């Protein structure tokens, strides 16, 4: 459908040169870490084979693949089930659940992991790793899925039921296909995060490629072993990216006009209500209660507990400023790429879009060293300035903006752009007056997701920020590595507090859209 429209008009270039140039520039920035890894592997030569071909790497490969598979599946299942319960059933106190289900996004994954690990040292291994990462990342699936469930026309489901499908078969054959782009986008984000996850796994005695890369750097102080492992990690990332692509399908999900959809019907839970409410309460307690209780415990028992108001406010101010700038720049950079991949389908736009995901799947230290190496050689004037730090955030967190923008662009009918152009509005005018308002939700959601990620970013902030920069994440790290848990706790608490508005915004944005 979209394809025929694009081909049929014939009045415009397949790839508008300015937009293509912008998108390619963004992709090149995002590919800096990949280039660094490839250059490292090439420079190391034959040694890499010996470093990769050993039993330990087989073990890491198995662990990483299993964690990504189970963690992503668990996030998809938990996120979809929670979204369905909140949006499509007559569960009482819906506004409360809407807020609670998105709130874990405000809790940094490493704080969540500390909380669980504090309960017992036997909290370790694959099960612990899957549990903690699921509790931290299921909202990445929940939010887009809930938004779609809230917005879809119930007529499709009614038709399915009228044609004799049961409720379960209707869910699988009618609802699930509509959820597919949102679900896959969220699952892709979770998968990429799991490939690069370090903070949440460091105490859980479960080694993946990323934790092993940190160990290699820490112990050998020589990039070769780490680079060899990063090379394998890149291959896994490419596998994930092509996998998502082949699952995504090409079905059109855009519809013209928002006015015709009715409010979705709500399934009657009946006697299952306490079970459903209990399940969601358990989820919230596990994802929010445990880390918050841990922070409270530190504050209460540690002798180093202190609230240095000036330091806390300055660090919070810096974190908010950097996160806002990071969110704005990253989302702006993602826009031309998202537009290209949705509106001009083809191998080139696909390749450009897929390039922007790689940075998110590599360990923070690899991305930081790649940018250091490039900046000190080619852009010494920008080295360790805010500009460079924001560029690092963009490389690291572009997928969060990309997935959100892509989804909302796919829902916006391309015909509206055509109408605007046919009425004599230029390309820039169409972009500003038609496309951008249509993807406002995607811009907001993408920015909020990037904001949340920047608040907890550590490695790049330490190495690339202007000297003297102190954020909540760096001060939490500094205090906790000095074994001053009570002094670290207020920084963790503030990270959650400044993240809460962004998490709340994510639930509200989609609500307004649905209520329009």
């Amino acid at each position, binding site marked *: 459908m979209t394809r025929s429209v694009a081909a049929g008009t014939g009045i415009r270039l397949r790839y508008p040169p300015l937009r293509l140039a912008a998108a390619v520039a963004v992709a090149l920035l995002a590919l800096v870490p990949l280039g660094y890894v490839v250059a490292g592997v090439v420079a190391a030569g034959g040694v890499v084979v010996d470093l990769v071909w050993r039993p330990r790497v087989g073990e890491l490969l198995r662990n990483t693949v299993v964690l990504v598979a189970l963690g992503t599946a668990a996030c998809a299942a938990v996120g979809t089930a929670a979204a369905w319960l909140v949006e499509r059933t007559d569960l009482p106190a819906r506004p409360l659940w809407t807020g609670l289900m998105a709130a874990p996004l405000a809790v940094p994954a490493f704080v969540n992991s500390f909380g669980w690990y504090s309960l017992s040292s036997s909290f370790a291994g694959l099960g612990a790793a899957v549990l903690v990462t699921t509790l931290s990342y299921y909202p990445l699936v929940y939010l887009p899925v809930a938004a779609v469930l809230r917005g879809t026309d119930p007529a499709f489901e009614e038709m399915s039921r009228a044609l004799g499908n049961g409720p379960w078969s209707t869910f699988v054959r009618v609802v699930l296909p509509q959820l597919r782009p949102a679900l896959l986008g969220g699952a892709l984000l979770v998968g990429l995060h799991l490939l690069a996850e370090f903070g949440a796994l460091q*105490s859980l005695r479960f080694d993946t490629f990323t934790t092993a890369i940190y160990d290699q750097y820490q112990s050998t102080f020589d990039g070769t072993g780490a680079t060899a492992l990063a090379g394998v990690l890149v291959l896994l990332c490419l596998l994930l990216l092509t996998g998502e692509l082949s699952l995504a399908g090409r079905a059109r999900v855009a519809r013209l006009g928002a006015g015709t959809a009715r409010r979705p019907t709500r399934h009657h839970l009946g006697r299952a209500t306490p079970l459903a409410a209990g399940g969601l309460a358990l989820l919230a307690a596990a994802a929010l209660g445990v880390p918050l209780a841990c922070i409270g415990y530190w504050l209460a028992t540690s002798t180093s507990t202190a609230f240095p108001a000036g330091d806390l406010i300055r660090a919070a101010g810096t974190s908010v400023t950097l996160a806002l700038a990071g969110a704005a720049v990253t989302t702006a950079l993602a826009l031309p790429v998202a537009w290209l991949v949705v509106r001009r389908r083809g191998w080139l736009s696909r390749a450009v879009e897929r390039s922007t995901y790689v940075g998110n799947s590599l360990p923070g230290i690899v991305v930081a060293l790649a940018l250091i190496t490039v900046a*000190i050689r080619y852009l010494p004037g920008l080295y360790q300035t805010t500009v460079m730090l924001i560029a690092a955030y963009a490389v690291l967190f572009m997928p969060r903006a990309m997935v959100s923008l892509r989804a909302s662009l796919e829902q916006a009918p391309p015909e509206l752009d055509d109408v605007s152009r046919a009425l004599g509005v230029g390309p820039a005018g169409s972009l500003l007056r038609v496309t951008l308002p249509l993807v406002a939700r995607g811009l907001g959601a993408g920015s909020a997701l990037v904001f949340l990620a920047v608040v907890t970013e550590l490695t790049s902030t330490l190495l690339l920020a202007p000297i003297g920069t102190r954020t909540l994440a760096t001060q939490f790290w500094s205090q906790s590595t000095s074994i001053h848990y009570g002094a670290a706790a207020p920084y963790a608490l503030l990270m959650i507090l400044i993240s809460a508005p962004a998490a709340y915004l994510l639930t509200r944005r989609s609500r307004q859209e649905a209520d329009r």
Partner: protein
Amino acid sequence: MRHVLRPLIAAAAVFALAACGSSEDPAVTAPPAETTLVLYNAQHEEVGQAWADGFTAKTGIKVELRNGSDFELANQIVAEGAASPADVFITENSPAMSLVSSKDLFAPVDAGTKAQVPPQYSSSKGDWVGVAARATVFVYNTTTVPEAELPASILDLAKPEWKDRFGISPSGADFQAIVSAVYALQGDAAGAAWLQGVKDNAKIYRGNSTIMKAANDGEVPGGVIYHYYWYGDQADGGANSAKTKLHFFGNQDPGAFVSVSGGGVLTSSKHAAQAQQFLAYMTGADGQKLLADSTALEYTVGAGVAANAKLTPLAELGAPTVDLNALNGPKIVAEMQRVGLL
């Protein structure tokens, strides 16, 4: 439309402001004679900051800190090369110093500074000196390990009776130093047998606090850690160490290894004289006194200043003699990769 643009414009404005704020070089507003040193600090921030503040108070020379961990900042300095903005680098453990030293990025240390630190705590190349030290210890749960059963030597941990009964953090600098010492003292064949035994017996953790907490929880009876995690936790309320004690191997046992935190001046420093002055201050009586009085509970190494009174004195630890420049040598790393500890 407006509701889309407004937050974007606001964010762009904030971004621009932040960029302006950061590019405001103190040198522009201050008199040109004033120098500001850049310290790449991989030590605990409180230690690095205390030294910086003490030095500024004494000399008027400002010091700015970039904090990070040993491997992050050492690799960053190597990547920066001659263009590094850092004047001085201090670490938690010596292998990070060795990495920078191996790339010839450290300038020779002033003779006066070298004289303040005993030679066993400094680089034999003369390009960095010790600024602090930490001792390897065996932390054990007092209810699950009777004192009589404590290992007399770290070599005992490869014996069958210690199967699954202790934790190690093999990526830590101390563990590799211990492996180096075992190979040096026992020979390659016995060293390799011991390493395989430890690999089979040990529970693998990442980081010293994790091992100590596991021992405290009774998850594992004991483990190999640095002393200051235990003293630090005791001082912070003891939540993760109350049920444990420390056992010192002593007797020049490989397990009694003392790891050195180093400090050096970079060849790329544009304020070499002041940077050398700062290094002299950290290792001198004033700097070492600050360290002894701090809550970091690390050992002093310079100017004959005694360590914090809570600690067992360094001289009584019976540390083995280890060549600091040979730690994490390619052979040890290859051996650890061979048995699968890395």
